[in-house]
């Protein structure tokens, strides 16, 4: 071994050990789903994405119990709630049990004079009180008297009725046997909020298992538990992704080792083939970890495909070696093609690497660094590790007459053009329906889980909010004040039928300013007593019956203002947290709107408040522009990537026709794969694009090697054998991924498998005839 060769080995070992050490010390795996949410480009988008990650909504858990009759379900719901409360893992916990809402009712009753919008000064004058008392008398005469009689002495002005109507206005699930049920009565429902934030996946997993364990203890036979929510999704999809990734990697590794052994019938080349693969994986993962910090589990799963791709390079090298040939000689013979192959593949990952999508960019870095590492190792290190006398080998050629098959395929080159034309037609016919605009499709959560989530959401009456008024203010008090100002306009909007209703934090936690104004409307004790006496003159109320009212008003006047701490773990407190939160240096108040009929009129109605940080946001439109923006960027990047690849191929071959011959099969493969996916009723997401880029990478290898000029006897057969093995390895890896339960990994796998097969076939069809 020359000094130069020793230096190469030393450098390789140093880099490998460095990567290994880095991964050992620094590798952090994340499954934060928001890595696959687009990075927001506007502030509004940023605060929506942040809310998805760790807002109050992300801590919500919806629980359904089914598979027993109503009373048993209700009983299970109550027992489950009691156990969960005991676990201390949950803050708010609601299942429709009136006893469980007692804390809410008490809070509303205690703070009614700062909460009720009806508390204005006119209400507490003698005429105002008179009107209230007359209404009370009418209510007493009606069957509803039974409902108000108990609270009348402390609340003759009906603030509790006002607030109860507001509470009832927020449609909850239907109640039966003191528990919430789905509309058809087949499912008991609970809503819980974890104390831990949504992104703390270990805590979310503990909370989910706490629910499952508690259910197992209290459930009657036959009853089933359904749990959903962002935290549950995150925790469970982490497990699924990890399992899928592990399985795909194992299947791929085992399959490829078997395949190589069948071809080489010797352990040495098989073992040596793993050297570039492992170097590629180590280099790729270390690069991702160094660049991004935490590595996403999906990136690691993608590593399985990288194995399938990286193993191509040692295969090209080993299979191209003539019997007894020193691999250094083989390497020198195929060096130009090999170098071009891994450079173009690495280059095709450029589009992903430059994406703003953190998840996609990770896949790009992994592919680029991994392929470069594998390619360089194959080219410079592998020949030095192999014995100088070459390997003993059995298979020299494919197990069929390669010449005949290849010339048959070349005769079918017309078919490739027809296929390409047909694919272009299919893609054109789908036009606008090409892309999946649903942000949800980017979520790596199994479809069944998404459907369950949708069901439970509909059951609990949690509305799918599309329009929301967003208030941004420097502090909590101002956020509340601004949203209260918006309330006046929104009430007008309700009257004019522009919207059905709205909800806001200030309803249950009014600004201090508003609370003070309400308390100022309450007269001092002696004045109130005098006015009440005047108001009750001639009415049949017994003397002194309203003493509790006088006491309650006086207590409210003297008492403190309501703040968040006093709402504690009540459902109202949870609602306030969901609608009012801190974001970076600001406070955000969300006002979700329901039943919006005329967004344009609504927007113009809210214009006067625009200057004070109040804006109307169409969440669907925001999400759509977010996704569309990414798509546009991705297509642009793909174009740049393809251009670089074309330039590389031209630089390597110095021939326009060779460049075309190399690029055409790849273009055809991408087009045919897209067309096939569309014809199968799928819509394309950013992950299909990632997989197609992968197809471009391997397709270029095939085209390059199919067109490599044979220089020694038997070269062509050996190259074809190498190509067959390489394609089989990639196909194996892609199929292993296609079989995973995570839709995102499945989509990548299916697309890659289909594309690899088509790229291989078209490369063969369009390859140059041998002289």
């Amino acid at each position: 071994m020359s000094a130069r060769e020793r230096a190469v080995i030393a450098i390789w070992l140093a880099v490998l050990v460095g990567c290994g050490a880095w991964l050992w010390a620094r590798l952090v795996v994340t499954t934060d789903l928001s890595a696959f949410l687009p990075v927001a480009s506007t502030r509004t988008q940023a605060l929506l994405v942040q809310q998805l990650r760790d807002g109050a909504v992300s801590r919500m858990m919806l629980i359904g119990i089914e598979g027993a009759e109503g009373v048993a379900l209700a009983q299970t719901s109550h027992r489950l709630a009691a156990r969960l409360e005991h676990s201390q893992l949950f803050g708010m916990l609601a299942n429709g049990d009136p006893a469980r809402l007692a804390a809410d009712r008490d809070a509303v009753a205690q703070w009614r004079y700062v909460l009720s919008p009806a508390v204005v000064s006119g209400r507490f004058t003698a005429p105002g009180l008179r009107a209230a008392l007359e209404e009370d008398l009418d209510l007493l005469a009606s069957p509803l008297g039974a409902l108000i009689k108990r609270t009348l002495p402390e609340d003759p002005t009906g603030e509790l009725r006002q607030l109860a109507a507001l509470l009832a206005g927020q449609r909850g699930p239907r109640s039966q046997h003191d528990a919430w049920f789905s509309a058809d009565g087949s499912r008991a429902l609970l809503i819980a909020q974890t104390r831990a934030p949504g992104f703390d996946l270990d805590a979310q997993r503990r909370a989910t298992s706490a629910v499952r364990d508690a259910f197992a203890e209290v459930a009657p036979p036959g009853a089933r538990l359904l749990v959903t929510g962002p935290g549950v999704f995150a925790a469970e999809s982490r497990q699924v992704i990890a399992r899928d990734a592990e399985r795909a990697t194992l299947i791929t590794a085992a399959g490829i080792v078997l395949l190589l052994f069948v071809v080489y019938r010797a352990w040495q080349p098989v073992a040596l083939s793993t050297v570039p693969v492992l170097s590629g994986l180590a280099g790729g993962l270390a690069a991702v970890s160094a660049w991004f910090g935490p590595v996403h589990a999906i990136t690691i799963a993608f590593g399985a495909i990288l194995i399938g791709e990286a193993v191509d390079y040692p295969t090209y090298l080993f299979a191209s070696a003539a019997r007894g040939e020193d691999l250094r000689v083989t390497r020198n013979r195929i060096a130009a093609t090999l170098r071009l192959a891994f450079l173009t593949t690495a280059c095709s990952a450029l589009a992903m690497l430059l994406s703003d999508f953190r998840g996609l960019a990770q896949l790009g870095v992994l592919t680029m660094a991994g392929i470069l590492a594998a390619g360089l190792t194959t080219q410079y290190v592998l020949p030095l590790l192999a014995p100088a006398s070459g390997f003993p080998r059995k298979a020299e050629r494919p197990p069929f007459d390669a010449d005949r098959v290849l010339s048959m395929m070349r005769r079918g080159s017309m078919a490739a053009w027809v296929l390409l034309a047909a694919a272009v037609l299919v893609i054109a016919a789908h036009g606008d329906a090409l892309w999946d605009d649903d942000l949800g499709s980017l979520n790596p959560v199994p479809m069944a889980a998404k459907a369950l989530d949708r069901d439970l959401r509909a059951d609990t009456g949690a509305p799918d909010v599309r329009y929301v008024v967003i208030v941004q203010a420097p502090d909590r008090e101002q956020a509340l004040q601004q949203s209260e100002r918006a309330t006046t306009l929104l009430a007008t909007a309700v009257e004019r039928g522009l919207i059905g209703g709205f909800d806001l934090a200030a309803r249950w936690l009014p600004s201090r300013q508003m609370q003070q104004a309400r308390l100022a409307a309450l007269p001092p004790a002696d004045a109130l007593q005098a006015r009440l006496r005047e108001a009750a003159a001639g009415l049949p109320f017994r003397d002194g019956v309203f003493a509790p009212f006088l006491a309650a008003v006086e207590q409210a006047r003297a008492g403190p203002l309501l703040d968040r701490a006093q709402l504690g773990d009540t459902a109202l407190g949870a609602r306030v947290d969901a609608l009012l939160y801190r974001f970076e240096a600001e406070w955000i108040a969300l006002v979700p709107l329901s039943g919006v009929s005329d967004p344009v009129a609504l927007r113009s109605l809210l214009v006067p408040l625009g200057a004070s940080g109040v804006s109307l946001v169409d969440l669907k439109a925001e999400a759509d522009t977010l996704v569309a923006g990414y798509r546009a960027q991705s297509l642009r990047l793909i174009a740049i990537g393809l251009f670089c690849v074309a330039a590389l191929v031209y630089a390597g071959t110095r021939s326009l026709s060779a460049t075309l011959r190399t690029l055409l099969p790849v273009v055809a493969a991408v087009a045919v794969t897209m067309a096939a996916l569309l014809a199968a009723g799928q819509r394309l997401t950013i992950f299909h694009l990632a997989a197609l880029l992968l197809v471009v990478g391997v397709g270029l290898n095939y085209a390059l090697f199919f067109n490599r000029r044979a220089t020694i006897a038997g070269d062509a057969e050996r190259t074809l054998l190498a190509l067959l093995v390489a394609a089989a390895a990639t196909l194996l890896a892609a199929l292993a991924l296609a079989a995973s339960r995570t839709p995102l990994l499945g989509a990548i796998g299916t697309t890659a498998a289909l594309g690899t097969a088509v790229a291989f076939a078209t490369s063969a069809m369009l390859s140059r005839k041998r002289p």
Partner: protein
Amino acid sequence: MTRGPCALALILALLPAVASAEFKLSELMQLLAAVPSARARFTETKDMALLNKPLVVTGRLVYVRPDRLERHVLTPNEERVVIVGSEVTVEDRARGRSRTFSSAAHPALLALVESLRATLAGDLAALERHFAVTLEGQRDAWTLVLVPRDAQMIQAIVRIRIGGVDGSVRRIEIDEASGDRSVTSIVEDPR
């Protein structure tokens, strides 16, 4: 040894006669269930701890089988209450307001609504679901005594007595846990 069987036959023969002498719950329910609809005038007198004199309410009642009951109050204040199934809608004409409640959520309201609705429909199963039911008197002067079973219901209402003649209800007395009491007398008015 023929006396035994003879005595048994005699007892068996007499049994229906004994039973018919007593007015049975099932018979009352049949009578009530046979009424397709009814119209009446009512006067309700409510004695309440809150008030220093009884509140007197008068108006009309309309019942349509199986579960629709309307109560039009004419004095002291015009008001219409429509009960369909377990839904109670209160229209306050003077204030131009209308509110709908589900009685299922309010035990006190549920007791009032169900006692009357199930009685008028002759629905014994529904009555017994919510109340311990006993019948006193005979066919031309009966009184149905309903005591709530539900713990929450009994915190509001202790007992409901519904009196009537044949298939028509003439009097409703409600004793509340608070000591408040309401007596409604009903006069048929087929107009």
